[in-house]
């Protein structure tokens, strides 16, 4: 009986890019995907290509195929190219793009905020159409002869020296499959990695229950902005966010609410749109579409492989590998697989590259999370004070979830003396903030 060279669990950016790159090397590849049709996004995703220099160890270059239209977007027919500067791969993307130029973190009074933007206002991220990109990647993969199983869940894998046996279920029917190597690319949930014990020893922070509302007629909404609202008056410990609407409807606002089992995002919606200081924005707003998702926040794996199994993308990482990180993982994974199948230590090389490249593999990086644990540690009034220190500063345009809080605290710490004199209570909290993580904001 012949077996597949590589089985890939999950047809996301990481899985598909692995499939494409491996198939180009002549490997026999099968992809197992839970969903029926990946060209329809049912799970919520913020869908941004992040241009930050060095973000996740790489710099993305987006070559746009057309100029911005009158609304400030790039149209759906534009033939764009997404390129990696450091690693040299490129992916074609036909679809719309919307530039994101400003990022604001607002405090309770809406006047004081942390502002991130480049001086010349060039975009630091592009909102793109993830479903469209996935469909295009899938087409390339299928043209290369990759086998694609939909509505199939792989829920357990058994690893032997000769290969991996996958236990799958499809529409209620169970079956087994054999492959010489397995790539786990099923995102943060990573059931297969869990079943192989690869998640042991990872720190679990929280599960973010996320609900997103695409809304039309939101006042003061600009598609080129990404706004977070910090304060208990907004109803949530984790800042509600307003971002760019989905592809095709950039004029809709994307309201993102993150909760936990004791604070369901549906309840937060009422508080945020009716009672908070920004309630005025939603007076005439209409909910057009709703999405949701749950992400499990784990610290990254120490070693992303075990035996014949390699975990890539979010499966091995600290939740947000983002699209570019996933594509990078897929690109390296194909190299690693080819070497492993030749009997060389490809996974070890992958691990080395992976550990060196991604920021979140640095232990100190986990501390950065404390930048997101402002609420309820600080009171609303204290956050207003902290943000008022940033009134005269515009920080560099950055999406990065690692750089943004770091930049913010760097600016705040420039005024340490002033804080000590004016607000000893805030200073006390700043001193004690070390070691706070997401779990403190989102403890269950």
């Amino acid at each position: 009986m012949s077996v597949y060279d590589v089985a890939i669990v999950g047809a996301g950016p990481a899985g598909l890019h692995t499939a494409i790159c491996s198939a180009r090397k002549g490997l026999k590849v099968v992809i197992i995907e839970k969903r029926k049709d990946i060209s329809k996004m049912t799970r919520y995703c913020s869908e941004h290509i992040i241009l930050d220099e060095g973000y996740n160890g790489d710099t993305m270059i987006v070559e746009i195929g057309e100029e911005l239209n009158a609304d400030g977007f790039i149209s759906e027919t534009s033939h764009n190219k997404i390129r990696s500067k450091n690693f040299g791969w490129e992916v074609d993307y036909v679809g719309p793009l919307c530039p994101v130029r400003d990022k604001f973190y607002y405090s309770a009074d809406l006047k004081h905020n942390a502002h991130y933007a480049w001086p010349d206002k060039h975009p630091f991220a592009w909102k793109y159409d993830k479903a469209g990109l996935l469909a295009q990647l899938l087409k390339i993969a299928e043209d290369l002869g990759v086998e694609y199983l939909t509505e199939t869940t792989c829920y357990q894998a058994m690893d032997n020296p000769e290969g991996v046996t996958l236990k799958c279920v499809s529409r209620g029917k169970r079956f087994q499959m054999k492959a010489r190597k397995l790539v786990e690319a099923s995102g943060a949930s990573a059931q297969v990695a869990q079943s192989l014990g690869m998640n042991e020893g990872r720190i679990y922070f929280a599960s973010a229950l996320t609900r997103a509302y695409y809304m039309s007629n939101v006042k003061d909404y600009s598609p080129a902005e990404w706004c977070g609202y910090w304060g208990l008056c907004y109803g949530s410990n984790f800042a509600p966010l307003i971002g760019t609407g989905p592809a095709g409807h950039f004029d809709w606002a994307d309201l993102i609410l993150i909760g936990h089992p004791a604070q369901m995002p549906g309840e937060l919606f009422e508080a945020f749109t009716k009672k908070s200081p920004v309630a005025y924005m939603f007076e005439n707003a209409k909910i057009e579409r709703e999405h949701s998702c749950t992400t499990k926040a784990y610290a990254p794996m120490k070693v992303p492989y075990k035996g014949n199994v390699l975990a890539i993308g979010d499966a091995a990482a600290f939740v947000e590998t983002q699209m570019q990180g996933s594509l990078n993982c897929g690109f390296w994974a194909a190299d690693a697989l080819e070497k492993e199948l030749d009997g060389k230590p490809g996974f070890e090389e992958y691990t080395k590259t992976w550990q060196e490249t991604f920021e979140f593999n640095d232990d100190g990086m986990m501390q950065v999370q404390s930048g997101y644990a402002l609420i309820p540690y600080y009171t609303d009034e204290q956050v207003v004070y902290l943000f008022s220190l940033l009134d005269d500063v515009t920080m560099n345009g950055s999406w990065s979830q690692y750089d943004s809080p770091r930049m913010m605290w760097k600016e705040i710490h420039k005024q340490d003396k002033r804080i000590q004199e004016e607000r000893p209570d805030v200073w006390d909290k700043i001193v004690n903030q070390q070691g706070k993580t997401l779990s403190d904001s989102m403890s269950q």
Partner: protein
Amino acid sequence: MVTLKINNKKIKANEGSTILEAARANGIHIPTLCSNDALEAYGACRLCIVEIQEGKKTVIESSCTYPVAEGQEVKTDSPRVIAGRKVVIELLLARCPNVKVIQKLAEEYGVKDSSMDFGKENEYCILCGLCVRACNEVVEAGAIQFVGRGADKVVDSPFHISAEDCIACGSCAFVCPTGIIKKNDLESSAVCSPEGTQEEGPKREILNWQVEYELKKCFKCGNPFAPIPHLDKLTKRFYALPQFFNYCPSCRNYIEVDEDKCLGCGSCMENCPVGALELEDKGGYDKKAKVYTQNCMACHTCERYCPVGAIS
């Protein structure tokens, strides 16, 4: 398939099966003490002996270990078999005069008090090995073993101290035909020390292997239902989620999806450890989660990860 005769009745049996299996499948009774469907045949008690004629050769063999073959003629209650079985029962009765199963067998076969004396008092264990084999083969704990040889052979924990690998599942007590393995579920117990008496929660103790473990309480009804190390072992062995054993078997509810609330994000599906959930396409952006209850193990993991509270 092979054809054979048992007590002059023509019987078809699968190749590789034993005479005992073939007889049982056709409703023919053969007494046994050391056989269990879940375990490998062992041939320790010798009660299941039968007379087997193959060609011109006739042998007395234990039916639990003897494979079926074409043209065999088997007698389960011929005078030779009954005589042999009587000897076995007499020996067992001499060793364990107080064990009910043995007394019953003796009565059935008309065996009177044995005249033999092995110099053993209050011996209950018949060394059938069911407990040892269940612990090794089914539970895969390997907590107990045979110790000693010949007349000194007993079942015991290693070094006759508290069995380290015992998970207090109670399988040994369940399979033991004599009832000598003492498994007690205690509602509460207390530890006395100079600092005072400390109450401890519900526990299970197995006196033979000198172990006691706390019992897990059901999150819903609060009743203790299984020892914690037992559940830990099952969780690990079947790759179940830590929370799978939060509920006792009678409180375990299968999940339901509220379609009005469901947004079809698939978080439940992604976190389901057995792939019991799928998304049903209802056209457009509308997708709803669907449960295949035959796969669902009611662990309620999905409930925890549903961002809209649609699963109950």
